[in-house]
């Protein structure tokens, strides 16, 4: 089964996920700056920042346990794995059977647990606060995410992400109300999970509202760099899942070398569009008060469940 093309695709995608993540974040920030009539920091700014952080010496709290030190690596590993197995470029990925959609959500959850534990580990009040808020978001976002993925899984009768994408890419054009519901729900989960604007604001450190930033306040140097990098890969991975589920056209299928350039161009185009869309969305929406976040996410959950129900109803 595993052939050269598959291995090559896997390597290209894994490397791409790691390298392209910061660029994608840079593009989103750039678009946001343009939309706000600013000139923007430039596309490569996230790379400069990572480089700068890697050159700094990490400062670690006196009472930090090994868990605190290990977390950035775990986080980075999880996200890299996720970025590697989401079929963004090709569906013939040898690693993909390692995790179906349920395990994928599990991988994200693992990262979340480690980050929250690390935040609690130091014992500062901000860490505990951030961890609590993160869990509040997580316990609603995860089921919503699962429901979204299940809707797609029911359409293609498989929980393997690659099979789902192959099925969806080949379907004839039809209006799937269930997928439309799932898409909206997924978008809401994406915003919440990646600490984007209506739920969290990655650009500020406002103690009343921050979630993600509150957890990583104590990190510095290469640890912080790894966490930031992992966040960038996470955003990329989520976007890739969204693209794979709701706009899979142009993806390379089977062991076909010649499809790779097309797939690359298609992915680049879709990422550019997705990033611009994300930036636009963040610009037009205002951040919620924190206690409205559960409402936001329960709406996402509701939409996902509705999508699934409507799928069954449409079939019956």
């Amino acid at each position, binding site marked *: 089964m595993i052939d050269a093309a598959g291995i090559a695709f896997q390597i290209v995608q894994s490397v791409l996920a790691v390298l392209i993540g910061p660029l994608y974040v840079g593009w989103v920030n750039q678009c946001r700056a343009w939309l706000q009539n600013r000139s923007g920091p430039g596309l490569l700014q996230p790379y400069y920042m990572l480089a700068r952080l890697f050159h700094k010496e990490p400062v670690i709290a006196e009472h930090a346990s090994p868990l605190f030190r290990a977390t950035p690596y775990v986080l980075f590993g999880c996200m890299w794995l996720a970025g590697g197995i989401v079929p963004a470029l090709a569906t013939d990925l040898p690693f993909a059977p390692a995790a179906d959609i349920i395990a994928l959500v599990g991988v994200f959850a693992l990262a979340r647990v480690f980050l929250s534990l690390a935040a609690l580990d130091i014992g500062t009040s901000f860490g505990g606060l951030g961890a609590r808020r993160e869990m509040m978001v997580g316990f609603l976002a995860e089921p919503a995410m699962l429901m979204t993925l299940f809707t797609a899984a029911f359409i293609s009768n498989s929980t393997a992400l690659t099979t789902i994408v192959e099925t969806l890419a080949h379907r004839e054009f*039809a*209006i799937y*109300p*269930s997928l*439309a*519901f799932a898409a909206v729900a997924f978008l809401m989960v994406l915003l919440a999970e990646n600490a984007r604007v209506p739920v969290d604001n990655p650009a500020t450190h406002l103690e009343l509202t921050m979630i993600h930033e509150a957890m990583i306040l104590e990190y510095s140097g290469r640890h912080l760099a790894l966490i930031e990098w992992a966040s960038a890969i996470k955003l990329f991975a989520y976007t890739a899942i969204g693209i794979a589920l709701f706009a899979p056209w142009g993806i390379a299928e089977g062991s076909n070398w010649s499809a790779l350039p097309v797939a690359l161009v298609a992915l680049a185009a879709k990422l550019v569009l997705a990033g611009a869309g994300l930036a636009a969305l963040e610009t037009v929406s205002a951040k919620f008060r924190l206690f409205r976040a*559960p*409402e936001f996410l*329960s*709406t996402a959950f*509701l*939409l996902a*469940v*509705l999508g699934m*129900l*409507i799928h*069954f*109803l*449409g*079939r*019956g």
Partner: protein
Amino acid sequence: MTTSLSQQLVNLLAAALLLIAFAMLSQRRVLSLIRLFAWQGMALGASTAIVAYSTAQHHLYYSAALTVALKVVLLPWILHRLIDKLYVRWDVETLINIPTTMLVGIGLAIFAFALATPISEMASTVTHSTLGIALASVLLSFLMMIVRRKAVPQVIGFLSMENGLFFAATSATYGMPLVVELGVALDVLVGTFIFGIFFFHIREQFDSLEIRHMEKLKED
């Protein structure tokens, strides 16, 4: 399963109808509620027209036109006039917080779908799969009437319940005989007028449109 475009459109509109029902449930503002109600009427009229077109049932065109005239134009206009006169643009209070309401709503939707499945399997109409959605929106409107405290949202809940019933009629049976539909429309219209008269009476007596003031009659 191959489905025609018109059926897909009806399914999509049905999904939109259900989504609007949920949106109404989560809505806090009276004005937005009225707007949502008008949209629901629009979706209902559009789906009726599509069913009429795809099945060549001409009397459905009349009911589609009636729906649009009554539920998109006339009733929202009356409601707007009412709240303008009564100054009730403030937020709607709910008895249960909104996420809980939504979860209860999901439960109701699942219940409705389960109830409707054996029946939709028997239906021969192209739109049979939407019966569950119709029942779900009826139950959701019912829920909305229960959890809202103010009189105006309760009335909107009642009207949207009627929307759900109307949708059930088109989706299960291609619509009731026209004479019945006219009668139902007349009842709804008269009912809305009476509701309007009521609002003024209630406000005269209680200085507010909160149902909370009207809990005096109880068994002691």
